[in-house]
């Protein structure tokens, strides 16, 4: 994933499903971690008062999570490990949700124990794993590589459960396991560390058959160091650890199945069941003295019996669902509790506080321990409902009180910035994505809310299940076409511009589960065809031009998992969930072959090869990208029961998407399995945004239009660009106005696009070929020029999302006033991604979970408490440099405000780059970088980044930055320092933004106090500065150094004249001395930039 990508989640009203399959509480009792069937992990905050609140959703696994465990000594590193059905293992940092390590092994684990022996082991310790394989695997906790295994000589089998016994008495750690067949085995742990490291076989020390099946838990009593509790699904037993003699068997009554247990004190045990009940027993010794060592188990067997003290049960509710996963956390230090916790498939977490000394009632009957806390994800959504409305909720007003429309499917068209949402009631809403997001996120957007242009398409009678925009996948298809399928197996072909129904296909095959398009290389009668997968496992091929159904393949017994195309022989290859393959001949519609097993696998793999061979052709590389997107997006929908599709695959799909077409703003619809609840993720590409926002030389536009002869579309775009530019220059376009202005040109260009489809088609081909040849510098540019004011709007929304609203009321006011951005309705749910396939999303109400967050700050968009400190530190280093544009005018000028925004964004981009840069890279770059003798490595690296991020301005300036002043380096150093302190990117970005805005607004605030008529000259001066967003500032610093050596007063006056003349047409000059004081620092930079500005925007200077 591009590091500059920032994500903001727009949750719907319903929480995403989270069917808990594994649960644990971290050792500090601050966080509950749950793993779900959907493949996500959820971090829940646990307060000191035992209140639960969901904090963060972690995306990393693509299949159901099977187990969770501690992965380090928790007091040193708060890491946990999770394992999934498909063999994936991830190590997570619980405090910030980062995935530290990921590996996929061909083993399915069902239980993991962390083991570390500090004085015999180097490294981070071992993860002892068991699961659907023989014996116990030893995995390195840091690298997740298999170290070795514990082998068993007798009855090797799968292991169900295990525990590590630290016995003080014997000074030896042992591993106790129970196999699927009920065989208890013991391995020496601490004494076999050496032989494990030397890869020698280690066999069990003892083994004993326990005569029961389905062992759930084995626990050692650390209080007495005598008893061993083994819980089976139908009974639980107590053994003597010394000789494994059976002391007690308790069989389950009234059909309950035991799920686990724990020893909570000497002779006191806790047993829980699969349906969420738990029981606390006292093990009573009747009379016989404990000092008598029982030679024979039978003697003791009669002397121990359980006495039920207390019980717990979950509250009856209708969502209640089995099985429950439960766990118990023992008290460790003073403020800690003894906690019994459970997680349900429905996603509910329940906690019980177990008293230190559980006692029964006076009459001896068991006492019921009440539930201490219970919570679900949905509770979070309900409680913080201001922030959890879906992206199109504001349309609910239009639907005379029928409640909000539930979006069942959605699709984003990047080229048009349109979001298509299919609703439960069969309507399809098409809206401008940016406006929708604004209306949804920002406060007081009544202005926005009334106006967003949207279309409602009515044609379906049932919930819309899938959408497809063919032009997005292949530019050869009509831009106006859009396909939608519903629950009633009706597929409609729409014209999205005229809102007409072009054709209705009735398939009569159950719900349309997904719509796909054949790859570009596959053509039938010269056209690509649409493939439609239906609920009855059938596949229909639709020909859009001919408005006909070519083939309806109905023989599949299992859900369709994969669709492949064989272009040479016109075959459609369908892979099903049971690993069988059906090959259909498209022309005749006959089933050519049906294969299962090994041969089926070979056929599917073969197709992959053929595709790869094709993609070697030079032109196809763009196509390949298309294909990969398509294929990726095709897989998640069809995946049947086994690997969970849902979010993971989609997020990887997003990655390619983003790479394929860099745009500043993107919407990613996300849908989860087993429910039609979806949500949207807004993606802001900071790099691209900065790229687009930097004052683009007009020559760029010109050259592009002259490049491709008479390309009408492009020219239309460029005129739009110019128009908005002039609008900006004439200072008439404030935020909302420009939005309206933008709406017009867009439709205009679309209309033109319609007329010239054929034309642009040809050009497209040429363009693509050219693209290949053009250097890298050209490539990142989006093929379609993104509208300038749209970009500004995106930038504003982005800043709105990042600003810590509510920290300082005055600052909020100033931001709204001067930056012309709107306040957030509440804290946003930020998405953080660190590498390709791990991703975490904040949940609504996450802000209340932040530890140490002051109560006043609830409802404040502050990512963490740290931000304020960081921001202060940043401000402390800031005053050294003066070249930063400050002092905005009171009369809100859209141009100046946009310049400020550009400045802020480029600053953020720099911070982002710096923090994201891996340390090794920093060193490497640093060493290879031409050194300015004194600078150390870090500085050199920083220098380089600086150049990197500002190379655009460098290019335009036509000169190379060769020297970076000290003041700036201190900032770079500070930020690099943050990286080393593992400050999160978002925290750093917000801190810098806060500091910069504060600085900015402070200077603003001063002006009216000091001298109310602020001189325009200064203003003009500022403008200049702001026009040179990135490097100028460093340049100025450089100059500042120069200036320091010069007498201060001399340069001031000539420069002043210069700036006055610049702004002469704006305003007359007054109050010279005052301004002088304000300005003198900035002015020296002036003359140097003057010529540059003249070059970039001539109209401005004149």
């Amino acid at each position, binding site marked *: 994933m591009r590091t500059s990508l920032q994500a903001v989640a727009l949750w719907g009203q319903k929480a995403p499903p989270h*069917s808990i399959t594994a649960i644990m509480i971290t050792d500090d009792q601050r966080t509950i971690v749950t793993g779900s*069937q959907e493949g996500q992990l959820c971090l829940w905050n646990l307060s000191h008062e035992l209140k639960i609140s969901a904090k963060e959703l972690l995306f990393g696994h693509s299949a159901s999570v099977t187990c969770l465990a501690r992965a380090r000594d928790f007091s040193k590193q708060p890491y946990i490990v999770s394992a999934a*059905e498909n063999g994936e293992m991830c190590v997570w940092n619980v405090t910030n949700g980062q995935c530290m390590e990921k590996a996929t092994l061909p083993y399915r684990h069902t239980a993991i124990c962390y083991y570390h022996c500090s004085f015999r082991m180097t490294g981070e310790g071992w993860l002892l794993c068991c699961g*659907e394989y*023989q014996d116990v695997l030893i995995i390195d906790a840091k690298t997740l590589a298999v170290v070795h295994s514990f082998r068993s*000589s*007798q*009855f*090797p*089998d*799968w292991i169900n459960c295990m525990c590590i016994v630290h016995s003080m008495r014997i000074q030896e750690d042992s591993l106790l396991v129970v196999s*699927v067949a009920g065989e208890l085995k013991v391995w020496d742990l601490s004494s076999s560390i050496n032989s494990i490291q030397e890869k020698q076989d280690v066999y069990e020390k003892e083994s004993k058959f326990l005569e029961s099946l*389905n062992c759930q838990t084995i626990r050692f009593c650390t209080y007495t160091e005598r008893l061993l509790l083994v819980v089976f*699904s139908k009974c639980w037993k107590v053994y003597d650890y010394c000789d494994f003699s059976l002391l007690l068997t308790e069989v389950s009554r009234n*059909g*309950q*199945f035991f799920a686990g247990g724990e020893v909570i004190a000497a002779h006191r045990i806790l047993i829980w069941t*699969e349906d969420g009940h738990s029981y606390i027993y006292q093990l009573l010794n009747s009379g016989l003295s404990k000092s008598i060592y029982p030679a024979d188990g039978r003697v003791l067997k009669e002397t121990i019996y359980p006495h039920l003290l207390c019980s717990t049960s979950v509250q009856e509710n*209708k969502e*209640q*669902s*089995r*099985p429950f996963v439960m766990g118990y956390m023992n008290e460790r230090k003073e403020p800690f509790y003894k906690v019994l916790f459970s997680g349900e*498939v429905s996603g509910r977490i329940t906690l019980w506080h177990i008293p230190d000394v559980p006692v029964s009632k006076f009459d001896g009957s068991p006492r019921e321990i009440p539930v201490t806390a219970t919570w679900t994800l949905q509770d979070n959504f309900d409680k913080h409902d201001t922030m959890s409305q879906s992206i199109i909720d504001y349309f609910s007003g239009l639907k005379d009180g*029928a409640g909000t429309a*539930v979006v069942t499917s959605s699709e984003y068209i990047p080229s048009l910035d349109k979001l298509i949402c299919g609703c*439960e*009631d069969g309507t399809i809403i098409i809206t401008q994505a940016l406006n929708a997001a604004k209306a949804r996120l920002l406060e007081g957007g009544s202005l926005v809310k009334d106006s967003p242009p949207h279309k409602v398409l009515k044609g379906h009678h*049932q*919930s819309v299940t899938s959408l497809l925009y063919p032009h997005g996948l292949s530019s050869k298809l009509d831009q106006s076409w859009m396909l939608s399928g519903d*629950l009633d197996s009706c597929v409609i072909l729409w014209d999205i511009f005229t809102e007409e129904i072009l054709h209705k296909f009735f398939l009569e095959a*159950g*719900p349309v589960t997904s719509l796909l398009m054949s790859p570009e290389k596959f053509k039938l009668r010269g056209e690509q065809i649409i493939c439609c997968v239906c*609920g*009855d*496992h059938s596949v229909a091929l639709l020909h859009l031009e001919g408005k006909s159904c070519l083939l309806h393949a109905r023989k599949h*017994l*299992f*859900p369709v998992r994969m669709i492949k195309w064989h272009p040479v022989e016109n075959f459609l290859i369908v892979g099903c*969930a*049971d*690993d069988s393959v059906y090959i259909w001949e498209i022309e005749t519609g006959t089933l050519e072959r049906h294969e299962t*097993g*090994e041969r089926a696998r070979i056929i599917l793999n073969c197709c992959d090869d053929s595709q790869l061979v094709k993609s070697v052709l030079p032109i196809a590389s763009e196509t390949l990208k298309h294909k990969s997107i398509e294929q990726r997006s095709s897989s998640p929908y069809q995946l049947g*029961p*086994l690997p969970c599709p849902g979010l993971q695959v989609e997020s990887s799909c997003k990655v390619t998407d983003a790479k394929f077409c860099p745009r500043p703003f993107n919407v990613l619809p996300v849908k989860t399995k*087993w429910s*039609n609840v979806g949500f949207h993720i807004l993606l802001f590409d900071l790099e691209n945004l900065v790229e687009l926002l930097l004052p683009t030389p007009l020559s760029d536009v010109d050259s592009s239009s002259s490049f491709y002869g008479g390309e009408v579309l492009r020219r239309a775009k460029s005129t739009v660009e110019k128009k908005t530019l002039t609008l900006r220059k004439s200072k008439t376009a404030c935020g909302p106005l420009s939005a309206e202005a933008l709406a017009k040109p867009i439709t205009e260009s679309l209309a033109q696009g319609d007329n010239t489809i054929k034309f642009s088609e040809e050009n497209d081909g040429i363009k693509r070929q050219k693209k290949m040849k053009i250097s890298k510098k050209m490539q990142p540019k989006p093929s379609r020029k993104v509208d300038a004011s749209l970009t500004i709007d995106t930038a504003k929304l982005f800043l709105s999302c990042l600003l810590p609203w509510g920290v300082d009321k005055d600052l909020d006011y100033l931001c709204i006033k001067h930056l012309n951005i709107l306040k957030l309705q509440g804290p946003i749910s930020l998405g953080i991604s660190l590498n390709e396939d791990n991703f975490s999303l904040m949940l609504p109400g996450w802000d209340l979970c932040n530890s140490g967050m002051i109560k006043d700050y609830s409802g404040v968009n502050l990512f963490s408490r740290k931000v304020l400190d960081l921001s202060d530190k940043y401000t402390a280093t800031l005053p050294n440099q003066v070249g930063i544009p400050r002092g905005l005018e009171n009369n809100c000028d859209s141009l100046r405000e946009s310049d400020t925004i550009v400045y802020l964004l480029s600053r953020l981009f720099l911070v982002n780059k710096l923090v994201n840069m891996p340390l090794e890279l920093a060193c490497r770059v640093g060493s290879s970088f031409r050194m300015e003798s004194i600078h150390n490595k870090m500085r050199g690296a920083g220098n380089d980044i600086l150049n990197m991020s500002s190379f655009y301005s460098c290019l335009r300036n036509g000169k190379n930055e060769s020297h970076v002043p000290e003041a700036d380096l201190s900032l770079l150093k500070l930020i690099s320092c943050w990286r080393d302190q593992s400050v999160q990117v978002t925290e750093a970005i917000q801190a810098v933004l806060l500091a910069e805005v504060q600085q900015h607004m402070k200077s603003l605030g001063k002006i009216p106090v000091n001298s109310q008529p602020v001189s325009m000259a200064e203003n003009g001066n500022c403008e200049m500065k702001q026009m040179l967003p990135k490097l100028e500032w460093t340049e100025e610093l450089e100059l500042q150094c120069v200036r320091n050596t010069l007498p201060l007063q001399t340069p001031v006056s000539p420069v002043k004249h210069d700036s006055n003349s610049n702004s002469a047409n704006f305003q007359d000059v007054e109050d010279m001395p005052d301004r002088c004081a304000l300005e003198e620092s900035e002015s020296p930079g002036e003359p140097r930039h003057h010529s540059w500005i003249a070059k970039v925007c001539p109209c401005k200077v004149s």
Partner: protein
Amino acid sequence: MPRNNQLLHFAFREDKQWKLQQIQDARNHVSQAIYLLTSRDQSYQFKTGAEVLKLMDAVMLQLTRARNRLTTPATLTLPEIAASGLTRMFAPALPSDLLVNVYINLNKLCLTVYQLHALQPNSTKNFRPARGAVLHSPGAMFEWGSQRLEVSHVHKVECVIPWLNDALVYFTVSLQLCQQLKDKISVFSSYWSYRPF
């Protein structure tokens, strides 16, 4: 076993156990599926269709894995075969130039015997270790200890086991039954969220 025109006899050792991993895994998967199905009380009432679908998904997952264990034998490399417990399971011990692998492929029990010969260190053949395969062909090379070995002859014996055939049929039938149940339930799923408007 024919070798240099003389017959060698080997028997399984009495003192050690060796289990055909595929059968054990398949059995364990099936017993997990059975446990999933029986871990509810007789009187248990399913409350939602989704609950049944999830149960069926879990059961089908286990059944598919069980079937796959039988239909797809593991692809092993020659060093993996050499290191497996099976080579040490015979009395008298196998000579060092023999490797034995036993696996199940669909309804057949297969025994493959690889006859090896050591490659001379200065041999002109370029050494390329063979990748994992179900059945290695003569000429496959590998490194074992400090020695480089090459497969000279491969002998394969297959034996159809009737009950394996039955088991595979039952797997297929049970999977289809589960899928049919799922299909029937999901027909109604469109009505779960249906509301008139």
